[in-house]
Structures are given as structure tokens and as C-alpha cells.
């Protein structure tokens, strides 16, 4: 939510900390500020309000309240009262009936006559524009201003376009409505509408209809402030695909105590802007709103607060914070508080939440780091984890590297209802496909990797119709250079070695040309319980990743005859010196001695992080190496 720094300042007589300081204070103690943007002489803070605070904090007043809790600054209340003038010819507001009091706890309407709709005063339009809201007209802008100022969504109807009385009722199945912005809706019978005698005027809490839209020619309006059921608003707004600032606040349960203030506040602003206007209030209060105030008392001990936070916060600090939150301390005796929570903040009736609030206002940075009590027994080792890791160790010992591939694929047996992309619509039914793709990828890079054989494995969950979810195990080999054994033979040999190492037979699966895959479920179950306290080694430490170049690599071989007493190291030294950082891998692949001369053959791999190397560039490097070698006494590049 975008919040204007200057707008926040209007709540305080004393100056606020700088925008950056304020952002840090809020981030550390209540909600994250995701950005600060300069707009003219103002700063706009992007406040990330999470669902637990959204009921009160999606407004400037809500953010101002937090500032007052975290500083010594005193926040001014919003004061707005209707004038309730006496008229010789009283207004005749429509009658209002709420047929669904469970879904509409409160409905406050104000009939306002003799207004003119035009451009907003700059005071309001500028504030709205600063936080990214378009100015529409003097009435709509006031409603938006109140919403962003104190959090109550409002709506206005053109009173002269309405017929008869107002009813808040369920829609009829198939009932039609066109929204203010021209979207045609077909309603369901569980949705809630605000209707006149002819039909829906608005989809309650979400969007007004175009029937009674306020326009430049509007003279008389009905101002609506209401409280609608959060789950209903959420469900409806999802169903019709309309999400806006109104639905967002309703679905986060804006308190019913905001309704009246919102109505008064907006009508006072409208009256201020329209000298000739006259107003009249009408309302209906649903059954649920008559709450039992006794339910708002909560009792807790200082010990409990200290125990949960794990720090020695004093009775007087607790008292100070509760008073700052604006709650009344009903009694305080021998370390036991009984306090009255103001109705909007009923979430704080849950003790751990109340303690959390006390803690974060006091300062989470004051919480010490303490240890857990000593555990009485050696922790049990998870059997599935243990044997899975054992298998990994055996495979690594035999030269296999572990890969992890994607669970979401274009083919499978279990389908997603809401795939991210058409090629990720299914859960994998096997690991084989991922292993094969990985073999291909790595085979292309074999020279770069310095491998004559690609040997990989994956252990991961797969999903089939018949067996559901189970742990699968796949290993694959691709020979780059001709090996003594075929891939399938080596795979079989490896499986045998695993069974041997674990001492349990029965690892059976499907063997294709170069991939073996098995269901590990039963095999793991058949293995014994591991001993408590067994751990697995790692060798990685704090090693830093070396970036992979996105440019192609090139391979060159070089063989040189040197006098018999010259070691491989001396040949290498020249290669390294003359190729610079373009050489990414070298491998001695052949050595033989003949007539007091030794031949060393190296395979060199070149690659740049900045560009594709040209033939010329590589040849230049090779020439430098060749020239240097041929300059040596008795050296001859073959």
C-alpha cells in the first residue's frame, strides 16, 4: 500500500522522523517498507501490510497509529461530525432494509441534496495523485480520500436515478448488472447486492452499477457506508474477477466500528465543499453488531508475558505499552492485569498475540538468545533419510554425481488444475526423462567437464495413478569415449554394489539402454532401523560458485616430443603461461617414450566469459604455445 509521508504528518503536531528513518522504524517493529519514492515535495512509502494487520492498517490513520506506538509522537484523532441542521422542509431519505444481517452487519446511509459535482479541490486531488490514485470528480475523490485516510470503503449513488427503497439482499441466480466501468455481470444466488425496487445498484462492497452512477449532472446523492462479511466479499470478488481497494479492505474484515465514522467523515467533507448542501442520516444495524462488551476483557499475568517473550519486561513497561495502545486497564493486582481491548482490535483477545504486540512495541531486539533444555535421549535417526543418504554415498564413491530435476513436466499421469505453463501441467511419473535430458546436456559439455563418461543419479518423488506418490531412484550413464563395458552392464554392476554395500537384496527396477530406475519405497522399508546419532559427511564448506560461461567452448589437442628427462609439469607450465585465462580445462591424455624422447599429448578446452571465441583467437593462443615449445632445446610439437 502506498502511503504519503506528508499525509501521515497531518496526524502529528511534531515533525516525523525523516522518511528513511521512519521506514526503518516501521520495518523493524511492525511492517516492512518495500520502497520509498520521491514525489514532488513528498515521499511515498510502499508499506507491506500482511493479513493480520490489514483490517486496520490499510490506511494513513492505521500507519499513523503504529508511528505513535513506536515513538513519543502523539497522534491526533480524526474528528468528523455531521452538522444535523434542522430544516423547515425535512429531507425524505429512502427506507433501508437489510435482509441478510449476517452478511451486512451495519449499513449507514446519508441523503445529501443540492450538491454540485465537479473538479476536486487541489488539497484532495493532490494527495490522491501522490499515492497513485487518479482524480475522478469531487464526490468520488472524497470517498476515495476517506478510504485511504481511515480505511472505510464508501459508495455514492445518484439519488434521482434510484426507484423506491434500498434493500441489501442476496442476488437472484442469473440476475444481471452492469458495473460503473461497463462490465456485464451475471450474478449467483449467494452473492449480495444493494438494490432498489427495480434491481441491483451495486455488487455489495465490490463495485457500483452504472444505473445510479454519480456524474457531473448529479444533484442529490445517497452516500453508503456499510460493513460486509469478509469471506463473502472474498468469494464474490474471486468469482467475478474484480479486486479493488474496497474489496481488499472488506475481505480483510474492516471493523464495523469504522462504518459510522466513515459516513460522518465523508458527508462532512462533502458539506464543506458544497455550501448549499443539506444532509440526512438513515441507517440499519444488523443483529451481529450488538456485541457483548464483556467479551472484550482479557486477563493475563506479568509472568506469562515474561515467559513467552523470554525476557524480564517490567510491570510498568507492560502498563505503559497497554495504555499507549489505547486500552483501558480495568485492574492490576499482584502481577495480574485485567484489561479492556477496544473492539476494532479483537484479534488481541488471543493472549499469545497480545503478548507479541507488547513484545514488538517494547522491542524484539531486547529478546536474549537462550538455549533449549538438554535433550534426554540421543535423537532417533529418520530411517528413510538415513538409507537414502547411504545410497547417495555409495553412488558418489562409484563416480556418480547427484542431480535434481523438475517435478513438473509436460507428460505424466497426475494432472494439475492450474498449471504455470502448458509444458508443466503434470507431475512426473518417473525420473527417467529428467535423467536422460541431464545426460544429453552433460554429454555436450563432456570436454568442458573433463569427463569421458557422464554418470548421474537422482532420488526423488514421482506420482502415478496406480501407486500414488513414492520415492523413485534413477541412475544414468552415457559413455563419451568408448569404455570397457556397455552402459547397461555398468548400471547392473552398480546396482549389485549397492545391494552388497547395504547387505540387502531386492533393489529391482527397469533397465533401459542407459538408465536404471527403481521404486525405492519397499526397498527402504526392508532395511533395518539406523542407530541413533548417525550423521553424514559433507565436503563442500564455504566454497564459492564459479560462474558458468554462456558462450561455447572450443577443444584443441596438442602433442609435443620433449627430451626424456623433461617432466609433464614443465610442459604444462608453458601451456598455462601462454593461454592465459581462456584455458578452462586441460587433460593429459597420452604419454609414451621412444628414442629417448617423451611425447605428451594434452587436450585443451578454451572458453571466454565475455564472448564466443573465434577460430583466429584460439589459433593465436595455440601458435603462442607451439612457438614457445618449439623454441626449447630438443622440443618438437608433433
Amino acid at each position, binding site marked *: 500500500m502506498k502511503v504519503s509521508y506528508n499525509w501521515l504528518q497531518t496526524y502529528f503536531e511534531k515533525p516525523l522522523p525523516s522518511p528513511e528513518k521512519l521506514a526503518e522504524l516501521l520495518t523493524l517493529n511492525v511492517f516492512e517498507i518495500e520502497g520509498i519514492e520521491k514525489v514532488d515535495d513528498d515521499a511515498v512509502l510502499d508499506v507491506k501490510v500482511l493479513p493480520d494487520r490489514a483490517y486496520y492498517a490499510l490506511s494513513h490513520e492505521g500507519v499513523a497509529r503504529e508511528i505513535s506506538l513506536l515513538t513519543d509522537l502523539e497522534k491526533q484523532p480524526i474528528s468528523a461530525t455531521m452538522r444535523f441542521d434542522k430544516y423547515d422542509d425535512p429531507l425524505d431519505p429512502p427506507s433501508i432494509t437489510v435482509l441478510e444481517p449476517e452478511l451486512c452487519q451495519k449499513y449507514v446511509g446519508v441523503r445529501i441534496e443540492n450538491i454540485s459535482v465537479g473538479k476536486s479541490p487541489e488539497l484532495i486531488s493532490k494527495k490522491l495523485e501522490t499515492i497513485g490514485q487518479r482524480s475522478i470528480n469531487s464526490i468520488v475523490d472524497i470517498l476515495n480520500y476517506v478510504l485511504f485516510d481511515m480505511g472505510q470503503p464508501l459508495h455514492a449513488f445518484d439519488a434521482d436515478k434510484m426507484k423506491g427503497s434500498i434493500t441489501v439482499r442476496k442476488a437472484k441466480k442469473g440476475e444481471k448488472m452492469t458495473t460503473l466501468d461497463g462490465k456485464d455481470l451475471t450474478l449467483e444466488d449467494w452473492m449480495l447486492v444493494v438494490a432498489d425496487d427495480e434491481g441491483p445498484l451495486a455488487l455489495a462492497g465490490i463495485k457500483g452499477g452504472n444505473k445510479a452512477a454519480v456524474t457531473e449532472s448529479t444533484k442529490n446523492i445517497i452516500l453508503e457506508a456499510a460493513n460486509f462479511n469478509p469471506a463473502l466479499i472474498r468469494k464474490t470478488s474471486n468469482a467475478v474477477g474484480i479486486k479493488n481497494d474496497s474489496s481488499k479492505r472488506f475481505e480483510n474484515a474492516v471493523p464495523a466500528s469504522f462504518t459510522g465514522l466513515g459516513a460522518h467523515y465523508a458527508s462532512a467533507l462533502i458539506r464543506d465543499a458544497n455550501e448549499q448542501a443539506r444532509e440526512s442520516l438513515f441507517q440499519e444495524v444488523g443483529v451481529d453488531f450488538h456485541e457483548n462488551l464483556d467479551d472484550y476483557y482479557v486477563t493475563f499475568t506479568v509472568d506469562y508475558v515474561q515467559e513467552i517473550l523470554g525476557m524480564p519486561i517490567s510491570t510498568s513497561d507492560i502498563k505503559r505499552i497497554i495504555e499507549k495502545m489505547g486500552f483501558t486497564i480495568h485492574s492490576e493486582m499482584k502481577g495480574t492485569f485485567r484489561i479492556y481491548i477496544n473492539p476494532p482490535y479483537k484479534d488481541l483477545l*488471543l493472549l*499469545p498475540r497480545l503478548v507479541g504486540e507488547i513484545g514488538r512495541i517494547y522491542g524484539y531486539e531486547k529478546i536474549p538468545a537462550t538455549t533449549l533444555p538438554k535433550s534426554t535421549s540421543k535423537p532417533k535417526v529418520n530411517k528413510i533419510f538415513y538409507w537414502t543418504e547411504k545410497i547417495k554415498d555409495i553412488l558418489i*564413491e562409484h563416480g556418480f554425481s547427484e542431480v*535434481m530435476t523438475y517435478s513438473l513436466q509436460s507428460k505424466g499421469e497426475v494432472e494439475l488444475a492450474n498449471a504455470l505453463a502448458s509444458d508443466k501441467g503434470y507431475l512426473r511419473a518417473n525420473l527417467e526423462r529428467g535423467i536422460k535430458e541431464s545426460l544429453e546436456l552433460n554429454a555436450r559439455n563432456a570436454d568442458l567437464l573433463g569427463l569421458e563418461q557422464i554418470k548421474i543419479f537422482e532420488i526423488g518423488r514421482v506420482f502415478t495413478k496406480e501407486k500414488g506418490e513414492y520415492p523413485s531412484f534413477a541412475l544414468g550413464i552415457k559413455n563419451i569415449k568408448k569404455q570397457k563395458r556397455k552402459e547397461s552392464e555398468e548400471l547392473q554392476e552398480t546396482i549389485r554394489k549397492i545391494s552388497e554395500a547395504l547387505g540387502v537384496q531386492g533393489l529391482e527396477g527397469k533397465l533401459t539402454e542407459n538408465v536404471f530406475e527403481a521404486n525405492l519405497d519397499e526397498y527402504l522399508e526392508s532395511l533395518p532401523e539406523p542407530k541413533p546419532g548417525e550423521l553424514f559427511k*559433507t565436503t563442500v564448506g564455504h566454497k564459492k*560458485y564459479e560462474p*558458468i560461461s554462456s558462450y561455447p567452448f572450443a577443444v584443441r589437442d596438442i602433442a609435443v616430443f620433449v627430451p626424456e628427462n623433461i617432466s609433464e609439469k614443465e610442459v604444462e607450465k608453458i601451456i598455462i603461461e601462454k593461454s592465459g585465462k581462456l584455458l578452462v580445462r586441460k587433460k593429459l591424455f597420452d604419454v609414451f617414450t621412444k628414442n629417448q624422447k617423451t611425447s605428451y599429448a594434452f587436450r585443451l578446452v578454451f572458453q571466454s566469459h565475455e564472448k564466443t571465441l573465434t577460430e583466429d583467437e584460439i589459433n593465436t593462443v595455440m601458435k603462442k604455445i607451439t612457438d614457445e615449445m618449439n623454441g626449447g632445446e630438443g622440443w618438437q610439437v608433433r
Partner: protein
Amino acid sequence: MTDSIDGQPGHLHPLSSAIREIDTIFTKLGFTIALGPELETEFYNFDALNIPADHPARDMQDTFWLKPAQGIKSKDRKVLRTHTSPVQIRYMEAHASTGKPMRIIVPGKVFRNEATDATHEAQFHQIEGLYVDKKVSLAQLKGTLETFFKEFFGQDVKLRFRPSFFPFVEPGVEVDIFFNNKWLEVMGAGLVHPNVFKAAGLDPVIWQGFAFGGGIDRLVMIKHGIPDVRLLYQGDLRLINQF
């Protein structure tokens, strides 16, 4: 420049290495590994964790749903788990009758239905922790996580809590570490919400607990300087064989 390595041992995936390190650190603190399914029911992934249907908290995690089978009741609808937290519920349910304190960590793959980029992937790994006892405090949570991060990243790592919200804990905090000269958000944590205990069959009057969870991928990326989460899932030995 690297020398070639035929005949050498293979390489463990850096995520597996991280899970082993995490396991080693927490085993010393008395924790044991618990595991759970990647395909979860709506009940375990959401409802039991105090995330009711038609509540804005559901939007905090973009979810992959399975094509519904005929005649499935709402609470048995299947999702790809969006976090490892359902295993908290499964473990507590299974061990409620023992009447003993619990210490578990849960490594595992999770899924989010969101566009992928260098820091977001539709699949990633999480580590979850749960401690249940008669008296549990935020200070113990801080101490436990501080021990973990110092062991994992180095002894000069600092840690701080910021207020946050996760429906299954109360109070909830965001855990930041100070590493390489900046504060990094690495975990969510808090004290177990009474509704979570109730859903798992434990009496919240008797039991308290703390829970934490975070992305292992992110820890691995921070530790080794890996710039793109997607590199971890390409089956690419140019990455894996570096570790």
C-alpha cells in the same frame, strides 16, 4: 582452470550437502528429521495450519491444485504442498499420545505457482523446525536459530527478529541474518498458534512450541554465491561438480 577428474568420486548436489549440514547441526541440539508427502491434502496444507478457506492468508502462497477427482470432499482436495509445515501437523498427530516434548526438522521439496526468475522457482526446498514442550519462549527460538546460523554461515553472523505474520504461529517473526555486510531475510518463525495444536490433537493449555521455516535453496545461494535458483534444477554438472 581445472584439471580433469576421471576415476574420481562423484559430487553430492549442493542442496543435499546443505540438508546434511543442517541435520548435523540440529542433531546436536536434539532434533530428529521427519518427512512428509509432497502431494498434500487441503486440510494439512492449509486448514490445520490455521489458514481457512476464503481467508486472505490463502493468497500468501500461490498454490498448485490437482485436477479434482470425482466425489472428493473439500478438505481432501489435493495440493502440491506450498510449505513443509504440514509435516508439523502429521508429526504432532502421530506423537500426541506419547505425552513427550518434540524436536523435529523437516527438509523437503515444496511448490509455488508463481512466475520463475533468478530468485523464484516453482519448486524449491524448505527446512522446517518444530519444538514442542511445556514452556517455550521467543528467546529460546532466537537462541536455537542463532546457533544454527552461526554454525552454517560462520560465527560472526548476527541475527534479528522483525514482526511478521504466518497464520500458524503467534506471535510471528521474520528472521534476518547479517552476512556479507547486509541484512538478509532468511526464515519465518514464531510460537505455535493454539489452533495448530488443537488441529493436531494437542492441548494448547498444556503445550507450547516454536516453529521456523525457510528456503534451503536461498541458504545455499547465499552461502556459495549462486546467483540464480534455477541453476540448481538443470541437472547440470557444470554447477554440481563444483561442489
